[in-house]
């Protein structure tokens, strides 16, 4: 039977486990990249919560196993029997019911946070077949709840989207005023609608600092919105494997004040900057490698894509 002393000891151990796992949960914020959107703050809150719960369970189970390994050892030749416990239905029901409630709670928390993210989703096929029908599951862009230090300004649904075009192996961005660049500039504290378009294979729009990721499909536009809350330089990376130069599908993301953003748009309208083209550079000057298989064929694909690029860019205009 469990004595009172053992109960107190158990309670104390659980309290220690709780405290330690809470501390680990707080540390978890530091494992993530910069939070450049309010979504990022929400996701990091969720991550911290998940880490805390996970640490509690991990420490609990591993603690019991480690204790057993240290203290419940048999002598090498002692093959006598251990404990006779074949089961206890009360305990078994308990360790089925409690985790069920726990994961439902986690799922509820996650769904809650998901509801606060600004993902409009795929343009449904129904809409493509019949443009008059409204999207089946796209939500209106909504302001984020006042959770962060800087509350988001009211959204501008009438705003023209910035068109994000992915092709093998380069990003390009077409701004509402018609200029195209290979750099994504965004005004801070404003919701910028994005229209994600792919020209060839599946690509993925991923900015770690925004905690936002969405696959992009050829011939199926996806509406997306970001509200950066912090000025800075970030990185856009293709997140869905797209072939030979997949690793080079990077683009700078610049979040700046509204005024600077406007100035930049005007500047590049006059003289487009000459940004480095990573793939072309690597093709022109292949790096020295220990082994070359000779399988290369991406050059042909890139050349073919360049030929259609102009035609396809017209197609990539906003609806």
């Amino acid at each position, binding site marked *: 039977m469990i004595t009172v002393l053992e109960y107190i000891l158990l309670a104390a151990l659980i309290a220690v486990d709780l405290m330690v796992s809470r501390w680990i949960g707080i540390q978890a914020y530091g494992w993530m990249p910069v939070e450049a959107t309010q979504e990022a703050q929400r996701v990091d809150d969720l991550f911290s919560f998940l880490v805390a719960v996970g640490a509690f369970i991990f420490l609990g189970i591993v603690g019991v196993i480690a204790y057993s390994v240290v203290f419940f050892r048999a002598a090498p030749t002692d093959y006598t029997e251990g404990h*006779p416990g*074949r089961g206890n239905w009360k305990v078994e029901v308990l360790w089925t019911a409690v985790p069920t409630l726990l994961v439902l709670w986690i799922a509820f928390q996650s769904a809650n946070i998901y509801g606060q993210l600004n993902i409009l989703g795929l343009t449904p096929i129904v809409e*493509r*077949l019949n443009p008059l029908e409204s999207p089946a599951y796209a939500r209106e862009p909504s302001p984020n709840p006042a959770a962060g230090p800087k509350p988001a300004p009211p959204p501008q649904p009438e705003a023209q989207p910035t068109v994000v075009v992915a092709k093998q192996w380069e990003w390009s961005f077409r701004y509402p005023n018609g200029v195209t660049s290979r750099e994504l500039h965004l005004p801070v504290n404003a919701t910028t609608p994005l229209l994600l378009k792919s020209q060839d294979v599946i690509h993925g729009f991923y900015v770690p600092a925004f905690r936002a990721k969405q696959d992009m499909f050829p011939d199926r536009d996806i509406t997306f919105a970001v509200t950066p809350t912090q000025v800075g330089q970030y990185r856009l990376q293709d997140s869905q494997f797209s072939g030979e130069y997949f690793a080079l599908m990077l683009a700078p993301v610049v979040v700046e004040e509204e005024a600077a953003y406007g100035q930049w748009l005007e500047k590049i309208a006059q003289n487009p900057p000459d940004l480095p083209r990573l793939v072309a550079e690597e093709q022109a000057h292949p790096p020295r490698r220990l082994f070359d298989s000779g399988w290369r064929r991406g050059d042909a694909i890139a050349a073919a894509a360049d030929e259609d690029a102009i035609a396809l860019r017209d197609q990539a205009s906003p609806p």
Partner: protein
Amino acid sequence: MRHIPLDERPIRYDRWIDRLPRWLQRFLPKGGGTAKDHHGKGMFGVTVFLLSESVVFLSLIFAYSALKATTADWLPAGVKGPEVSTFVVINTVVLLSSSAVIQLAERAIKKERLTRFRLLWSLTVLMGSYFLVGQAIEWSQAEFGLRTSIGSSAFYVLTGFHGLHVLVGVLLQLTMLGRSLIPHNYDDGHFGINATTLFWHFVDALWVVLFTIIYVW
């Protein structure tokens, strides 16, 4: 000395197995120690395999339905798609009624009426072959090719994969017909015939589903 109850009392499901229909019973074992029941485990294995095989069809049907529900140009304008015609209906009726014929053949062999069995069994072979020929004619007369559009490709893949199964069924039947000439072939029971019959029913049942989604939908 403390007694603990034996936690794992065998489930007595032999009793409710007895209440099931005969044809179902042959797929279910009656507890441990059935290792020597070669016919029983053989039929069980064939059943499990057919259930698994039906998932391949299910996945193709899923792809077919999803594409048909969402694709803009299922078939190009002006091209006549697969339709319920007298030709197709006769083909279908022949295939489905062959299920009844093979069932009669199976019953004949159970009663050891070998000539009657061979007759009915050969009739099934003919009916299956008739279906295959009809399918080939339909393919050659279709207004669309494999690459015409998504709809035409899906039509050929689905009917082709089913036709492959019909062909395998006919080949199995021919093998069994040949084996029926071997003396003492049926000393260990009729596993080959039972399994082929089950396979044939499976192929026919699938055709009902495919017919509905290809020609009726």
